[in-house]
Protein backbone atom coordinates (compact mmCIF):
# COMPACT_ATOMS: atom_id res chain seq x y z
CA UNK A 1 0.00 0.00 0.00
CA UNK A 2 1.39 3.31 -1.03
CA UNK A 3 1.61 5.96 1.63
CA UNK A 4 0.58 9.24 0.14
CA UNK A 5 0.87 12.66 1.64
CA UNK A 6 -1.49 15.45 0.92
CA UNK A 7 0.80 17.04 -1.60
CA UNK A 8 1.34 13.97 -3.69
CA UNK A 9 -2.17 12.57 -3.49
CA UNK A 10 -3.29 11.87 -7.01
CA UNK A 11 -6.10 14.14 -8.19
CA UNK A 12 -9.47 12.47 -8.33
CA UNK A 13 -9.84 10.91 -11.75
CA UNK A 14 -12.04 13.05 -13.95
CA UNK A 15 -15.38 11.47 -14.69
CA UNK A 16 -15.30 9.76 -18.03
CA UNK A 17 -17.59 11.12 -20.73
CA UNK A 18 -19.64 7.96 -20.44
CA UNK A 19 -20.15 8.39 -16.69
CA UNK A 20 -21.04 12.02 -17.22
CA UNK A 21 -23.65 11.13 -19.81
CA UNK A 22 -24.96 8.49 -17.46
CA UNK A 23 -25.29 11.05 -14.67
CA UNK A 24 -27.02 13.48 -16.98
CA UNK A 25 -29.53 10.80 -17.94
CA UNK A 26 -30.14 10.14 -14.26
CA UNK A 27 -30.89 13.78 -13.55
CA UNK A 28 -33.12 13.98 -16.60
CA UNK A 29 -35.14 10.99 -15.37
CA UNK A 30 -35.67 12.52 -11.94
CA UNK A 31 -36.12 16.07 -13.26
CA UNK A 32 -39.94 15.90 -12.96
CA UNK A 33 -39.58 15.22 -9.24
CA UNK A 34 -36.94 17.91 -8.77
CA UNK A 35 -39.28 20.46 -10.35
CA UNK A 36 -42.62 19.34 -8.91
CA UNK A 37 -41.27 18.39 -5.49
CA UNK A 38 -39.09 21.48 -5.39
CA UNK A 39 -42.00 23.82 -5.98
CA UNK A 40 -45.02 22.06 -4.50
CA UNK A 41 -43.44 20.26 -1.56
CA UNK A 42 -40.40 22.17 -0.40
CA UNK A 43 -41.23 25.53 -1.97
CA UNK A 44 -44.77 25.46 -0.64
CA UNK A 45 -43.52 24.46 2.79
CA UNK A 46 -41.19 27.47 2.89
CA UNK A 47 -43.94 29.74 1.61
CA UNK A 48 -46.37 28.59 4.28
CA UNK A 49 -43.64 29.01 6.89
CA UNK A 50 -43.09 32.56 5.65
CA UNK A 51 -46.77 33.53 5.69
CA UNK A 52 -47.14 32.23 9.24
CA UNK A 53 -45.05 35.27 10.30
CA UNK A 54 -47.20 37.77 8.40
CA UNK A 55 -50.72 39.13 8.58
CA UNK A 56 -51.76 37.67 5.23
CA UNK A 57 -55.40 36.82 4.63
CA UNK A 58 -56.74 34.47 2.00
CA UNK A 59 -58.62 37.26 0.33
CA UNK A 60 -55.31 39.18 0.15
CA UNK A 61 -56.80 42.38 -0.92
CA UNK A 62 -55.25 45.78 -0.75
CA UNK A 63 -51.97 45.95 1.06
CA UNK A 64 -48.93 43.68 0.87
CA UNK A 65 -48.57 41.37 3.87
CA UNK A 66 -46.82 42.86 6.89
CA UNK A 67 -44.27 40.95 8.92
CA UNK A 68 -45.70 40.40 12.40
CA UNK A 69 -43.07 38.17 14.00
CA UNK A 70 -44.28 35.44 16.31
CA UNK A 71 -47.64 36.97 17.04
CA UNK A 72 -49.64 34.36 15.11
CA UNK A 73 -47.95 31.62 17.12
CA UNK A 74 -48.49 33.41 20.40
CA UNK A 75 -52.11 33.97 19.51
CA UNK A 76 -52.57 30.31 18.57
CA UNK A 77 -51.52 29.16 22.02
CA UNK A 78 -54.00 31.43 23.70
CA UNK A 79 -56.82 30.72 21.25
CA UNK A 80 -59.42 28.63 23.13
CA UNK A 81 -60.71 26.94 19.98
CA UNK A 82 -57.23 25.80 19.01
CA UNK A 83 -56.62 24.35 22.48
CA UNK A 84 -59.98 22.62 22.37
CA UNK A 85 -59.19 21.16 18.95
CA UNK A 86 -55.78 19.91 20.11
CA UNK A 87 -57.44 18.26 23.10
CA UNK A 88 -59.96 16.58 20.82
CA UNK A 89 -57.20 15.46 18.45
CA UNK A 90 -55.21 14.13 21.39
CA UNK A 91 -58.04 11.83 22.55
CA UNK A 92 -58.67 10.79 18.99
CA UNK A 93 -55.00 9.92 18.59
CA UNK A 94 -54.78 7.96 21.84
CA UNK A 95 -57.98 5.96 21.41
CA UNK A 96 -57.92 5.36 17.66
CA UNK A 97 -54.26 4.39 17.32
CA UNK A 98 -54.49 2.06 20.32
CA UNK A 99 -57.55 0.17 19.17
CA UNK A 100 -56.72 0.11 15.48
CA UNK A 101 -53.24 -1.28 16.17
CA UNK A 102 -54.44 -3.99 18.57
CA UNK A 103 -57.39 -4.83 16.31
CA UNK A 104 -55.19 -5.02 13.24
CA UNK A 105 -52.71 -7.38 14.94
CA UNK A 106 -55.49 -9.69 16.16
CA UNK A 107 -57.20 -9.71 12.77
CA UNK A 108 -53.91 -10.44 11.01
CA UNK A 109 -53.21 -13.37 13.34
CA UNK A 110 -56.69 -14.69 12.62
CA UNK A 111 -56.19 -14.35 8.87
CA UNK A 112 -52.70 -15.85 8.90
CA UNK A 113 -53.74 -19.42 8.30
CA UNK A 114 -53.53 -21.83 5.43
CA UNK A 115 -57.14 -22.87 5.38
CA UNK A 116 -59.67 -23.16 2.62
CA UNK A 117 -61.30 -19.92 1.58
CA UNK A 118 -58.81 -17.70 3.42
CA UNK A 119 -58.49 -15.50 0.34
CA UNK A 120 -62.21 -14.84 0.39
CA UNK A 121 -62.12 -13.87 4.05
CA UNK A 122 -59.14 -11.58 3.48
CA UNK A 123 -61.04 -9.85 0.71
CA UNK A 124 -64.22 -9.46 2.75
CA UNK A 125 -62.42 -8.21 5.82
CA UNK A 126 -60.37 -5.72 3.86
CA UNK A 127 -63.40 -4.18 2.13
CA UNK A 128 -64.20 -1.47 4.75
CA UNK A 129 -60.87 0.13 3.88
CA UNK A 130 -61.75 0.55 0.23
CA UNK A 131 -64.59 3.03 0.57
CA UNK A 132 -63.77 6.69 1.02
CA UNK A 133 -64.05 8.40 4.37
CA UNK A 134 -66.97 10.37 2.94
CA UNK A 135 -68.89 7.22 2.00
CA UNK A 136 -68.27 5.66 5.39
CA UNK A 137 -69.31 8.89 7.06
CA UNK A 138 -72.55 9.10 5.09
CA UNK A 139 -73.38 5.49 5.87
CA UNK A 140 -72.70 5.93 9.57
CA UNK A 141 -74.58 9.22 9.55
CA UNK A 142 -77.58 7.05 8.86
CA UNK A 143 -76.64 4.15 11.15
CA UNK A 144 -76.05 6.58 14.02
CA UNK A 145 -79.50 8.21 13.69
CA UNK A 146 -81.56 8.08 16.82
CA UNK A 147 -84.01 5.78 15.05
CA UNK A 148 -81.19 3.90 13.36
CA UNK A 149 -79.71 0.43 13.39
CA UNK A 150 -77.05 1.10 16.00
CA UNK A 151 -79.53 2.18 18.65
CA UNK A 152 -81.71 -0.74 17.66
CA UNK A 153 -78.86 -3.25 17.90
CA UNK A 154 -77.64 -1.89 21.25
CA UNK A 155 -81.09 -1.30 22.68
CA UNK A 156 -80.18 2.32 23.39
CA UNK A 157 -81.75 5.64 22.52
CA UNK A 158 -78.86 8.02 21.97
CA UNK A 159 -78.48 10.84 19.44
CA UNK A 160 -74.93 9.64 18.81
CA UNK A 161 -73.69 12.50 16.69
CA UNK A 162 -75.35 15.26 18.72
CA UNK A 163 -74.39 14.17 22.21
CA UNK A 164 -71.84 16.47 23.91
CA UNK A 165 -71.68 14.54 27.20
CA UNK A 166 -68.19 13.34 27.95
CA UNK A 167 -67.42 9.66 28.30
CA UNK A 168 -65.31 9.89 31.48
CA UNK A 169 -68.01 11.78 33.38
CA UNK A 170 -69.64 8.69 34.93
CA UNK A 171 -66.22 7.53 36.15
CA UNK A 172 -65.37 10.97 37.57
CA UNK A 173 -68.71 11.08 39.34
CA UNK A 174 -68.12 7.65 40.81
CA UNK A 175 -64.93 9.02 42.35
CA UNK A 176 -66.84 12.01 43.63
CA UNK A 177 -65.20 14.56 41.34
CA UNK A 178 -67.77 17.29 40.90
CA UNK A 179 -66.11 19.35 38.19
CA UNK A 180 -63.04 18.78 36.07
CA UNK A 181 -61.50 20.59 33.08
CA UNK A 182 -63.14 19.56 29.81
CA UNK A 183 -60.01 17.85 28.57
CA UNK A 184 -59.90 15.47 31.56
CA UNK A 185 -63.56 14.63 31.08
CA UNK A 186 -62.52 12.81 27.90
CA UNK A 187 -64.01 12.94 24.43
CA UNK A 188 -67.72 13.53 23.91
CA UNK A 189 -70.10 10.78 22.93
CA UNK A 190 -70.27 12.21 19.40
CA UNK A 191 -66.50 12.24 19.06
CA UNK A 192 -66.28 8.69 20.43
CA UNK A 193 -68.87 7.55 17.89
CA UNK A 194 -66.70 8.98 15.12
CA UNK A 195 -63.66 7.22 16.57
CA UNK A 196 -65.46 3.88 16.53
CA UNK A 197 -66.36 4.43 12.88
CA UNK A 198 -62.78 5.33 12.07
CA UNK A 199 -61.38 2.28 13.85
CA UNK A 200 -63.81 0.10 11.90
CA UNK A 201 -62.30 1.27 8.61
CA UNK A 202 -58.62 1.47 9.56
CA UNK A 203 -58.25 -1.92 11.23
CA UNK A 204 -58.26 -3.66 7.82
CA UNK A 205 -55.82 -1.13 6.33
CA UNK A 206 -53.22 -1.91 8.95
CA UNK A 207 -54.15 -5.59 9.21
CA UNK A 208 -52.64 -6.09 5.75
CA UNK A 209 -49.29 -4.77 6.91
CA UNK A 210 -49.24 -7.07 9.94
CA UNK A 211 -50.33 -10.02 7.80
CA UNK A 212 -47.40 -9.49 5.44
CA UNK A 213 -45.02 -9.29 8.39
CA UNK A 214 -46.45 -12.43 9.99
CA UNK A 215 -45.87 -14.35 6.79
CA UNK A 216 -42.23 -13.29 6.83
CA UNK A 217 -41.61 -14.86 10.25
CA UNK A 218 -39.66 -18.06 9.64
CA UNK A 219 -41.46 -21.15 10.87
CA UNK A 220 -38.35 -22.64 12.49
CA UNK A 221 -38.56 -20.01 15.23
CA UNK A 222 -41.85 -21.47 16.35
CA UNK A 223 -40.50 -25.01 16.09
CA UNK A 224 -37.58 -24.13 18.30
CA UNK A 225 -39.90 -22.44 20.75
CA UNK A 226 -42.30 -25.36 20.89
CA UNK A 227 -39.40 -27.64 21.84
CA UNK A 228 -38.80 -25.26 24.73
CA UNK A 229 -42.46 -25.56 25.60
CA UNK A 230 -43.57 -22.18 24.28
CA UNK A 231 -46.67 -22.64 22.20
CA UNK A 232 -49.88 -20.78 21.58
CA UNK A 233 -50.21 -17.66 23.66
CA UNK A 234 -46.65 -17.78 24.98
CA UNK A 235 -45.26 -18.07 21.46
CA UNK A 236 -47.35 -15.06 20.50
CA UNK A 237 -46.00 -12.95 23.38
CA UNK A 238 -42.37 -14.02 23.16
CA UNK A 239 -41.86 -14.55 19.44
CA UNK A 240 -44.57 -12.99 17.32
CA UNK A 241 -44.96 -9.65 19.09
CA UNK A 242 -41.22 -8.85 19.40
CA UNK A 243 -40.76 -9.66 15.71
CA UNK A 244 -43.67 -7.42 14.77
CA UNK A 245 -42.06 -4.49 16.55
CA UNK A 246 -40.86 -2.59 13.47
CA UNK A 247 -44.30 -2.93 11.87
CA UNK A 248 -46.00 -1.87 15.08
CA UNK A 249 -43.81 1.23 15.06
CA UNK A 250 -44.71 1.97 11.45
CA UNK A 251 -48.41 1.49 12.12
CA UNK A 252 -48.25 3.74 15.18
CA UNK A 253 -46.43 6.42 13.20
CA UNK A 254 -48.87 6.28 10.29
CA UNK A 255 -51.73 6.23 12.78
CA UNK A 256 -50.38 9.27 14.58
CA UNK A 257 -49.97 11.24 11.37
CA UNK A 258 -53.47 10.26 10.28
CA UNK A 259 -55.35 10.83 13.53
CA UNK A 260 -53.86 14.23 14.34
CA UNK A 261 -54.94 15.43 10.90
CA UNK A 262 -58.47 14.02 11.05
CA UNK A 263 -60.74 16.18 8.92
CA UNK A 264 -63.16 14.43 6.56
CA UNK A 265 -65.28 12.68 9.17
CA UNK A 266 -65.65 15.76 11.35
CA UNK A 267 -66.43 17.92 8.34
CA UNK A 268 -69.06 15.61 6.89
CA UNK A 269 -70.72 14.44 10.09
CA UNK A 270 -70.66 17.15 12.71
CA UNK A 271 -68.85 20.28 11.44
CA UNK A 272 -67.05 20.40 14.77
CA UNK A 273 -70.14 20.27 16.95
CA UNK A 274 -71.79 19.61 19.37
CA UNK A 275 -70.24 22.30 21.58
CA UNK A 276 -66.97 22.04 19.61
CA UNK A 277 -66.33 18.57 20.97
CA UNK A 278 -65.51 17.31 17.47
CA UNK A 279 -63.63 20.38 16.33
CA UNK A 280 -60.28 19.20 14.96
CA UNK A 281 -57.14 21.26 14.35
CA UNK A 282 -57.35 20.78 10.58
CA UNK A 283 -61.03 21.76 10.57
CA UNK A 284 -60.16 24.91 12.48
CA UNK A 285 -57.23 25.67 10.15
CA UNK A 286 -59.58 25.18 7.20
CA UNK A 287 -62.18 27.51 8.69
CA UNK A 288 -59.64 30.21 9.52
CA UNK A 289 -57.80 29.99 6.21
CA UNK A 290 -60.86 30.23 4.02
CA UNK A 291 -62.79 32.43 6.39
CA UNK A 292 -65.72 30.12 6.97
CA UNK A 293 -67.80 31.68 9.73
CA UNK A 294 -64.97 34.11 10.52
CA UNK A 295 -62.66 36.55 8.77
CA UNK A 296 -60.20 34.75 6.50
CA UNK A 297 -56.89 34.57 8.35
CA UNK A 298 -54.53 32.48 6.28
CA UNK A 299 -51.44 33.49 8.23
CA UNK A 300 -53.01 32.45 11.52
CA UNK A 301 -54.05 29.15 9.89
CA UNK A 302 -50.48 28.59 8.72
CA UNK A 303 -49.12 29.17 12.22
CA UNK A 304 -51.57 26.66 13.69
CA UNK A 305 -50.63 24.21 10.94
CA UNK A 306 -46.96 24.46 11.88
CA UNK A 307 -47.71 23.94 15.56
CA UNK A 308 -49.76 20.88 14.64
CA UNK A 309 -46.95 19.57 12.43
CA UNK A 310 -44.41 20.08 15.21
CA UNK A 311 -46.58 18.05 17.58
CA UNK A 312 -46.96 15.25 15.05
CA UNK A 313 -43.25 15.13 14.26
CA UNK A 314 -42.31 15.16 17.95
CA UNK A 315 -44.62 12.26 18.76
CA UNK A 316 -43.44 10.18 15.80
CA UNK A 317 -39.80 10.74 16.83
CA UNK A 318 -40.60 9.44 20.30
CA UNK A 319 -42.41 6.45 18.83
CA UNK A 320 -39.48 5.71 16.57
CA UNK A 321 -37.06 5.79 19.47
CA UNK A 322 -39.02 3.59 21.86
CA UNK A 323 -40.95 1.19 19.68
CA UNK A 324 -38.92 0.65 16.55
CA UNK A 325 -36.07 -1.30 18.11
CA UNK A 326 -34.30 -3.53 15.63
CA UNK A 327 -34.99 -7.14 16.47
CA UNK A 328 -32.27 -9.53 17.44
CA UNK A 329 -33.53 -12.56 15.56
CA UNK A 330 -32.45 -11.62 12.05
Amino acid sequence: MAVSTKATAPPKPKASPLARREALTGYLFIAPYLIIGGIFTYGLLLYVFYISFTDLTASFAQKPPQFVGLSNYIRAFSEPDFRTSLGNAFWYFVIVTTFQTIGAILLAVLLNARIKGIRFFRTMLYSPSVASSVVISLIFFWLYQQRGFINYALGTNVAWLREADRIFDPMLQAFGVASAPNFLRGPSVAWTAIMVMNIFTTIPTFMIMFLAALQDIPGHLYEAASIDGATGRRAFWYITLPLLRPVIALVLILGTIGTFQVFDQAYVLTEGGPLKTTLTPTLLIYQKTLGKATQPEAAFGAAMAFILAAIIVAITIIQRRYVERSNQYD
Partner: protein
Amino acid sequence: MAVSAKQQPVAANRAGTERPASAYVGTTIRYVLLVLLSLFAFTPFILSFLGTFKTSAEINAFPPQILPEQWRFDNWIRVWNFTIPSVQGRLLPLWLFNSGWLALVNVLAQIFFCSLAAYAFARIRFPGRDLIFTAIIASMAIPAAVTLIPGYVFYSRLGWINTYWPLIVPKLIVPVGILMLTQFFRSIPKELEEAAYIDGLGRFGTYWNIALPLSRPALLTFAILQFQGSWNDFVGPLLFLQRPQLMTLTVGMSFFRYQYTNDLTAILVGAMFNAIPMLILFFIFSKYYIEGTSYSGLAGQ
Protein backbone atom coordinates in the same frame (compact mmCIF):
# COMPACT_ATOMS: atom_id res chain seq x y z
CA MET B 1 -43.32 -8.66 2.12
CA ALA B 2 -45.86 -9.91 -0.40
CA VAL B 3 -48.84 -11.65 1.08
CA SER B 4 -49.34 -15.11 -0.25
CA ALA B 5 -51.12 -18.13 1.05
CA LYS B 6 -48.53 -20.59 -0.19
CA GLN B 7 -44.95 -19.52 0.36
CA GLN B 8 -44.44 -19.56 4.09
CA PRO B 9 -45.30 -22.19 6.61
CA VAL B 10 -48.05 -20.81 8.71
CA ALA B 11 -46.73 -19.89 12.06
CA ALA B 12 -49.89 -19.69 14.05
CA ASN B 13 -50.93 -23.23 13.21
CA ARG B 14 -47.56 -24.69 14.06
CA ALA B 15 -48.24 -25.26 17.66
CA GLY B 16 -51.25 -27.36 16.90
CA THR B 17 -49.70 -29.76 14.42
CA GLU B 18 -48.86 -32.40 16.97
CA ARG B 19 -52.35 -32.43 18.42
CA PRO B 20 -54.78 -33.01 15.58
CA ALA B 21 -57.88 -32.91 17.78
CA SER B 22 -57.19 -29.48 19.22
CA ALA B 23 -56.05 -28.27 15.80
CA TYR B 24 -59.43 -29.26 14.46
CA VAL B 25 -61.19 -27.32 17.20
CA GLY B 26 -58.88 -24.37 16.53
CA THR B 27 -59.72 -24.34 12.85
CA THR B 28 -63.42 -24.50 13.58
CA ILE B 29 -63.20 -21.57 15.97
CA ARG B 30 -61.19 -19.68 13.38
CA TYR B 31 -63.85 -20.27 10.72
CA VAL B 32 -66.65 -19.16 13.02
CA LEU B 33 -64.79 -15.97 13.87
CA LEU B 34 -63.94 -15.31 10.23
CA VAL B 35 -67.52 -15.71 9.11
CA LEU B 36 -68.88 -13.49 11.88
CA LEU B 37 -66.28 -10.78 11.33
CA SER B 38 -66.73 -10.84 7.56
CA LEU B 39 -70.46 -10.34 8.04
CA PHE B 40 -69.77 -7.53 10.48
CA ALA B 41 -67.33 -5.84 8.09
CA PHE B 42 -69.75 -5.95 5.20
CA THR B 43 -72.96 -5.18 7.07
CA PRO B 44 -72.82 -1.36 6.75
CA PHE B 45 -72.58 -1.64 2.95
CA ILE B 46 -75.40 -4.17 2.70
CA LEU B 47 -77.71 -2.30 5.06
CA SER B 48 -77.23 0.98 3.25
CA PHE B 49 -77.55 -0.61 -0.17
CA LEU B 50 -80.87 -2.11 0.89
CA GLY B 51 -81.78 1.22 2.44
CA THR B 52 -81.60 2.95 -0.93
CA PHE B 53 -84.72 1.07 -2.04
CA LYS B 54 -86.84 2.16 0.91
CA THR B 55 -89.38 4.93 1.11
CA SER B 56 -88.71 7.76 3.51
CA ALA B 57 -91.36 6.34 5.84
CA GLU B 58 -89.55 2.99 5.89
CA ILE B 59 -86.11 4.49 6.42
CA ASN B 60 -87.39 6.41 9.46
CA ALA B 61 -89.31 3.49 10.90
CA PHE B 62 -88.36 2.09 14.27
CA PRO B 63 -87.54 -0.72 14.77
CA PRO B 64 -85.69 -0.55 11.45
CA GLN B 65 -86.29 -3.30 8.91
CA ILE B 66 -83.43 -4.80 6.96
CA LEU B 67 -85.26 -5.42 3.69
CA PRO B 68 -87.34 -2.85 1.83
CA GLU B 69 -91.02 -3.68 1.40
CA GLN B 70 -90.73 -3.17 -2.32
CA TRP B 71 -87.73 -2.73 -4.57
CA ARG B 72 -88.17 0.86 -5.69
CA PHE B 73 -85.64 2.68 -7.82
CA ASP B 74 -87.22 6.07 -7.17
CA ASN B 75 -84.39 7.22 -4.93
CA TRP B 76 -81.72 6.29 -7.46
CA ILE B 77 -83.56 8.15 -10.20
CA ARG B 78 -84.18 11.13 -7.97
CA VAL B 79 -80.53 11.44 -7.03
CA TRP B 80 -79.36 10.88 -10.60
CA ASN B 81 -81.63 13.73 -11.73
CA PHE B 82 -80.57 16.06 -8.91
CA THR B 83 -80.19 19.65 -10.13
CA ILE B 84 -79.67 23.03 -8.53
CA PRO B 85 -80.89 26.35 -9.95
CA SER B 86 -77.42 27.81 -10.53
CA VAL B 87 -76.18 24.95 -12.71
CA GLN B 88 -77.65 23.67 -15.90
CA GLY B 89 -78.11 19.93 -16.22
CA ARG B 90 -77.73 17.03 -13.83
CA LEU B 91 -75.01 17.18 -11.23
CA LEU B 92 -74.47 13.56 -10.29
CA PRO B 93 -73.32 12.33 -13.73
CA LEU B 94 -71.07 15.36 -13.89
CA TRP B 95 -69.51 14.58 -10.50
CA LEU B 96 -68.97 10.94 -11.49
CA PHE B 97 -67.29 12.09 -14.68
CA ASN B 98 -65.10 14.63 -12.84
CA SER B 99 -63.95 12.06 -10.29
CA GLY B 100 -63.27 9.54 -13.03
CA TRP B 101 -61.18 11.63 -15.39
CA LEU B 102 -59.27 13.30 -12.58
CA ALA B 103 -58.32 9.92 -11.10
CA LEU B 104 -57.32 8.67 -14.53
CA VAL B 105 -55.12 11.67 -15.27
CA ASN B 106 -53.47 11.39 -11.86
CA VAL B 107 -52.76 7.70 -12.32
CA LEU B 108 -51.40 7.93 -15.86
CA ALA B 109 -49.06 10.79 -14.99
CA GLN B 110 -47.88 9.09 -11.82
CA ILE B 111 -47.20 5.77 -13.52
CA PHE B 112 -44.97 7.43 -16.06
CA PHE B 113 -43.11 9.98 -13.94
CA CYS B 114 -42.74 7.80 -10.83
CA SER B 115 -41.48 4.78 -12.73
CA LEU B 116 -39.03 6.91 -14.71
CA ALA B 117 -37.58 8.42 -11.55
CA ALA B 118 -37.66 5.07 -9.78
CA TYR B 119 -35.73 3.50 -12.64
CA ALA B 120 -33.04 6.14 -12.29
CA PHE B 121 -32.80 5.59 -8.53
CA ALA B 122 -32.59 1.83 -8.96
CA ARG B 123 -30.25 1.57 -11.95
CA ILE B 124 -28.36 4.73 -12.82
CA ARG B 125 -25.38 6.12 -10.93
CA PHE B 126 -25.28 9.88 -10.50
CA PRO B 127 -23.85 12.16 -7.84
CA GLY B 128 -26.25 12.94 -5.01
CA ARG B 129 -28.55 10.05 -5.84
CA ASP B 130 -28.80 8.64 -2.34
CA LEU B 131 -29.14 12.08 -0.80
CA ILE B 132 -32.06 12.98 -3.06
CA PHE B 133 -33.68 9.64 -2.41
CA THR B 134 -33.42 10.22 1.33
CA ALA B 135 -34.94 13.67 0.89
CA ILE B 136 -37.88 12.13 -0.95
CA ILE B 137 -38.50 9.67 1.87
CA ALA B 138 -38.13 12.46 4.42
CA SER B 139 -40.68 14.58 2.57
CA MET B 140 -43.25 11.88 3.24
CA ALA B 141 -43.02 12.71 6.94
CA ILE B 142 -44.33 16.25 6.40
CA PRO B 143 -47.95 16.15 7.56
CA ALA B 144 -50.14 16.95 4.57
CA ALA B 145 -52.28 19.39 6.52
CA VAL B 146 -49.37 21.76 6.94
CA THR B 147 -48.96 22.51 3.29
CA LEU B 148 -52.31 21.55 1.85
CA ILE B 149 -54.73 23.82 3.65
CA PRO B 150 -52.53 26.92 4.12
CA GLY B 151 -51.31 26.23 0.58
CA TYR B 152 -54.70 27.54 -0.46
CA VAL B 153 -53.21 31.04 -0.47
CA PHE B 154 -50.37 29.93 -2.71
CA TYR B 155 -52.70 28.34 -5.26
CA SER B 156 -54.99 31.31 -5.01
CA ARG B 157 -52.07 33.56 -5.99
CA LEU B 158 -51.50 31.36 -9.00
CA GLY B 159 -55.15 31.83 -9.93
CA TRP B 160 -55.76 28.12 -9.57
CA ILE B 161 -58.85 28.17 -7.34
CA ASN B 162 -61.81 26.60 -9.12
CA THR B 163 -59.49 24.89 -11.57
CA TYR B 164 -58.20 21.33 -11.50
CA TRP B 165 -54.54 22.39 -11.62
CA PRO B 166 -53.91 22.13 -7.84
CA LEU B 167 -55.25 18.57 -7.99
CA ILE B 168 -53.14 17.60 -10.99
CA VAL B 169 -49.81 19.43 -11.15
CA PRO B 170 -48.48 18.78 -7.60
CA LYS B 171 -49.51 15.13 -8.00
CA LEU B 172 -47.81 14.48 -11.32
CA ILE B 173 -45.19 12.59 -9.36
CA VAL B 174 -45.56 11.37 -5.76
CA PRO B 175 -42.94 10.15 -3.25
CA VAL B 176 -44.82 6.97 -2.37
CA GLY B 177 -44.74 5.90 -6.03
CA ILE B 178 -41.03 6.57 -6.39
CA LEU B 179 -40.32 4.61 -3.22
CA MET B 180 -42.53 1.66 -4.10
CA LEU B 181 -41.31 1.31 -7.69
CA THR B 182 -37.64 1.83 -6.79
CA GLN B 183 -37.94 -1.09 -4.40
CA PHE B 184 -39.58 -3.10 -7.13
CA PHE B 185 -36.92 -2.31 -9.77
CA ARG B 186 -34.19 -3.22 -7.30
CA SER B 187 -35.82 -6.60 -6.79
CA ILE B 188 -35.79 -7.64 -10.45
CA PRO B 189 -32.57 -9.00 -12.02
CA LYS B 190 -30.48 -6.63 -14.11
CA GLU B 191 -29.29 -9.13 -16.73
CA LEU B 192 -32.08 -8.61 -19.26
CA GLU B 193 -31.67 -4.87 -19.15
CA GLU B 194 -27.89 -5.08 -19.45
CA ALA B 195 -28.15 -7.09 -22.63
CA ALA B 196 -30.58 -4.57 -24.07
CA TYR B 197 -28.41 -1.66 -22.98
CA ILE B 198 -25.35 -3.15 -24.65
CA ASP B 199 -27.44 -3.69 -27.78
CA GLY B 200 -27.65 0.08 -27.99
CA LEU B 201 -31.16 0.60 -26.75
CA GLY B 202 -30.00 3.43 -24.49
CA ARG B 203 -31.25 4.17 -21.00
CA PHE B 204 -34.70 5.37 -21.97
CA GLY B 205 -35.16 2.56 -24.46
CA THR B 206 -34.15 -0.02 -21.88
CA TYR B 207 -36.52 1.49 -19.33
CA TRP B 208 -39.40 1.70 -21.78
CA ASN B 209 -38.99 -1.59 -23.64
CA ILE B 210 -37.55 -3.89 -20.99
CA ALA B 211 -38.06 -2.64 -17.43
CA LEU B 212 -41.61 -1.32 -17.77
CA PRO B 213 -43.12 -4.47 -19.29
CA LEU B 214 -41.38 -6.54 -16.60
CA SER B 215 -42.97 -4.48 -13.86
CA ARG B 216 -46.57 -4.71 -15.01
CA PRO B 217 -47.85 -6.25 -11.74
CA ALA B 218 -46.19 -3.57 -9.61
CA LEU B 219 -47.44 -0.80 -11.90
CA LEU B 220 -50.95 -2.20 -11.80
CA THR B 221 -50.89 -2.38 -8.01
CA PHE B 222 -49.64 1.17 -7.80
CA ALA B 223 -52.21 2.36 -10.36
CA ILE B 224 -55.11 0.79 -8.46
CA LEU B 225 -54.05 2.25 -5.12
CA GLN B 226 -53.57 5.71 -6.59
CA PHE B 227 -56.84 5.57 -8.52
CA GLN B 228 -58.57 4.77 -5.26
CA GLY B 229 -56.68 7.53 -3.48
CA SER B 230 -57.70 10.12 -6.04
CA TRP B 231 -61.30 8.92 -6.29
CA ASN B 232 -61.67 8.99 -2.51
CA ASP B 233 -59.79 12.26 -1.94
CA PHE B 234 -61.79 14.83 -0.06
CA VAL B 235 -59.77 17.72 1.37
CA GLY B 236 -58.07 18.72 -1.87
CA PRO B 237 -61.21 18.90 -4.01
CA LEU B 238 -63.07 20.55 -1.13
CA LEU B 239 -60.48 23.33 -0.94
CA PHE B 240 -60.03 24.01 -4.61
CA LEU B 241 -63.31 23.07 -6.31
CA GLN B 242 -65.95 25.33 -4.85
CA ARG B 243 -68.35 25.58 -7.79
CA PRO B 244 -70.86 22.71 -7.82
CA GLN B 245 -70.27 21.94 -11.49
CA LEU B 246 -66.55 21.40 -10.88
CA MET B 247 -66.87 19.16 -7.83
CA THR B 248 -65.80 15.56 -7.62
CA LEU B 249 -68.16 12.95 -6.23
CA THR B 250 -66.85 13.02 -2.64
CA VAL B 251 -67.20 16.79 -2.33
CA GLY B 252 -70.46 16.69 -4.23
CA MET B 253 -71.80 14.17 -1.75
CA SER B 254 -70.86 16.31 1.20
CA PHE B 255 -72.49 19.30 -0.54
CA PHE B 256 -75.51 17.10 -1.14
CA ARG B 257 -75.63 15.97 2.49
CA TYR B 258 -75.90 19.55 3.68
CA GLN B 259 -78.62 20.24 1.13
CA TYR B 260 -80.65 17.17 2.12
CA THR B 261 -79.91 16.56 5.77
CA ASN B 262 -83.26 14.91 6.34
CA ASP B 263 -83.42 12.97 3.12
CA LEU B 264 -81.64 9.86 4.33
CA THR B 265 -82.44 7.70 1.31
CA ALA B 266 -80.91 10.27 -1.02
CA ILE B 267 -77.77 10.45 1.10
CA LEU B 268 -77.44 6.67 0.98
CA VAL B 269 -77.83 6.60 -2.80
CA GLY B 270 -75.10 9.21 -3.02
CA ALA B 271 -72.83 7.09 -0.85
CA MET B 272 -73.52 4.08 -3.06
CA PHE B 273 -72.63 5.96 -6.25
CA ASN B 274 -69.32 6.72 -4.63
CA ALA B 275 -68.67 3.31 -3.06
CA ILE B 276 -69.85 0.83 -5.69
CA PRO B 277 -67.25 1.64 -8.38
CA MET B 278 -64.48 1.26 -5.79
CA LEU B 279 -65.90 -1.98 -4.41
CA ILE B 280 -66.14 -3.45 -7.92
CA LEU B 281 -62.57 -2.40 -8.68
CA PHE B 282 -61.52 -3.90 -5.37
CA PHE B 283 -63.19 -7.26 -5.90
CA ILE B 284 -61.69 -7.57 -9.40
CA PHE B 285 -58.18 -6.63 -8.31
CA SER B 286 -58.22 -7.69 -4.66
CA LYS B 287 -55.02 -9.69 -5.13
CA TYR B 288 -53.15 -6.56 -6.22
CA TYR B 289 -54.68 -4.45 -3.48
CA ILE B 290 -53.59 -6.80 -0.78
CA GLU B 291 -50.08 -7.29 -2.15
CA GLY B 292 -49.53 -3.65 -2.90
CA THR B 293 -50.65 -2.36 0.44
CA SER B 294 -48.23 -4.68 2.10
CA TYR B 295 -45.18 -3.54 0.26
CA SER B 296 -45.92 0.13 0.02
CA GLY B 297 -47.46 0.32 3.44
CA LEU B 298 -49.09 3.57 2.40
CA ALA B 299 -52.09 2.79 0.30
CA GLY B 300 -53.48 5.72 -1.61
CA GLN B 301 -51.80 8.47 0.32
